[in-house]
């Protein structure tokens, strides 16, 4: 048997880091130029009305609109008017832009899609192909790109900025993010097995899975049997989270409960698909909230049930 000979082509390593052949003042000049360019691009896109926006339609029952990409900041407590305490996660929307539009035919044949990008990032550590999409949209390069399936009346022109006021208090959202990686974990932590008692004669068996299946009849272990393995670092969604408060000055969403991911990770936020929560998601800002519109919204928007400090308490 001849083992296949792996051919290696020895080449010189030609790519280097961007700083390598530049002097210090060159590097700082380039960084400044890049930030100025980003600011210029963002201000150019601030008035969607000016550069031929796409037609805006009204919200119809059954239409799906875009979501946002946000940064998970942390958690804090919130009280209702009846005195109950809940915890909320703060998600900040930093530099969210619509980057590309894929029509029904391009995407999969059923719905159109919009690709949205999150936080701005420097162009020096990204490959050329990645930066091309952003150059076509006229938008600074982003750290995370997500696709949202969208109905045809909710499409937005690439380059429009998206703000936190896209969601209003009282709505329910689904949040998707990459969970914290726990590494190789045993069956009790990974799948929530009960394990075995700590004492009363147990020999070397306290956290093991125990039996693996029925016995002689199948005489095998079924596929998909829950066993120890690598846990975390996968995308997971938490459904049906209520939005308690929206801060329009800093673009922060206060979302009920906890959200997958570590602090400062990028999450995907969209309208909830749970059938029991569809009532609350009626008449949202459609297709999105535009900052140059006529409506003036206050800096903070609170949910009706939320207790705001300084109000009289109902005994």
């Amino acid at each position: 048997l001849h083992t296949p000979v792996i051919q290696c082509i020895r080449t010189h390593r030609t790519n280097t880091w961007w700083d390598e052949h530049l002097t210090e003042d060159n590097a700082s000049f380039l960084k400044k130029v890049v930030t100025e360019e980003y600011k210029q691009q963002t201000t150019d896109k601030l008035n969607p009305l000016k550069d031929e926006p796409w037609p805006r339609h009204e919200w119809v029952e059954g239409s799906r609109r875009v979501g946002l990409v946000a940064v998970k900041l942390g958690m804090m407590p919130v009280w209702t008017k009846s005195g109950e305490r809940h915890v909320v996660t703060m998600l900040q929307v930093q530099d969210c832009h619509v980057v590309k539009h894929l029509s029904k035919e391009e995407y999969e044949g059923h719905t159109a899609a919009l690709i949205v990008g999150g936080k701005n990032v420097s162009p020096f550590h990204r490959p050329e192909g990645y930066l091309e999409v952003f150059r076509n949209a006229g938008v600074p390069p982003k750290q995370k790109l997500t696709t949202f399936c969208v109905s045809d009346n909710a499409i937005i022109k690439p380059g429009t900025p998206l703000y936190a006021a896209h969601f209003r208090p009282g709505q329910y959202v689904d949040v998707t993010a990459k969970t914290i990686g726990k590494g190789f974990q045993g069956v009790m932590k990974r799948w929530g097995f009960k394990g075995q008692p700590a004492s009363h004669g147990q020999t070397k068996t306290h956290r093991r899975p125990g039996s693996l299946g029925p016995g002689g009849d199948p005489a095998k272990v079924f596929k998909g049997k829950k066993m120890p393995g690598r846990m975390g670092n996968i995308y997971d969604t938490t459904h049906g989270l209520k939005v308690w408060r929206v801060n329009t000055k800093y673009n922060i969403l206060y979302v009920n409960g906890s959200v997958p991911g570590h602090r400062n990770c990028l999450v995907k936020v969209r309208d909830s698909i749970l059938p029991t929560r569809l009532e609350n998601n009626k008449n949202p800002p459609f297709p999105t909230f535009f900052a140059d519109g006529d409506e003036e919204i206050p800096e903070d928007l609170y949910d009706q049930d939320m207790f705001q400090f300084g109000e009289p308490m109902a005994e």
Partner: protein
Amino acid sequence: MNECKCVAGLASSAAAACLSSAELRSHRSALFSKEQVRQRSLYPRTEKIEVMLQGPGLQGTLLVMNRGLSTPYSCTRHLTEWHVKSSALALVDGQPWHMHQPLIHSCDLTLLTFKDDDPQIANQAYWRSCAALLGHVLDEAFKDEFSVELLKLPEVPVTAGAFCCDLVLDSRLDSWTPTEVRTASSQTLLTFEERAAQSQNGTVSLYRCGDHVTVSGGPLVARTGLCSQYEVTSVHKVGECEWGVLRRAQGLSLPLNLTAHHNVWKMLRKRAERLVRNVFVCDNSVKQVKARHCRQKHCFNALVSF
């Protein structure tokens, strides 16, 4: 005389309009080879000269070379492979000297690379060689029936942002504008050979690269393999002259050990697309450019002066 004829033959290409470009090029190349053979025959007996090497790590090395035959390139061959690959230009008694030009008398030799403390001379020579290459590329770019006449390679400082080449195209191409300006990647390692041809006005240096012969104002860089990124950025119409519409083609290039990140390259390229006016080394005269462009000029200025 033989020399005058050859110079006249190379300069008056307007008279040879009936020949196609490929024939012209082979004719010029044949003339160059003849001249090369003639100059070699000026030293029938090999005489020895002493070459003293100067430079970091090489002080006081004495090499015994042949008069009229050995070039600074052959001196580097006696040293290490790194010297051969990295030296772009040589300084003979303080004068810039092409790597493949033969040494005539005993002298001091310094080898220049792009990464020295003061690479101004090497950079300027690199710029000149890129302009010559641009001429070569444009010569070959058009089909044989259209005649391309390269007028001159203006001496542009590196800080201007792009090297340029003035040319006159065939009158049939008057309305031609470049739709797509693509990169010209010269992958083959062609050597620039040089011979000083004697003419009535003094010495004129000719350089040959592959099949193409150019006249240049100063020494060129050793070989084309030294440029890593090379792009022809734009072609502008500058004016009219007695032969036709005068155009200026511009390009941008960086040497092999100074490859730029794709972002940095894009910014430099955007700058190289703008028309370069005949501005010479005096920096004060460039104040007519707007503030933003001035900063970009400094960018490249510092990029080159390591």
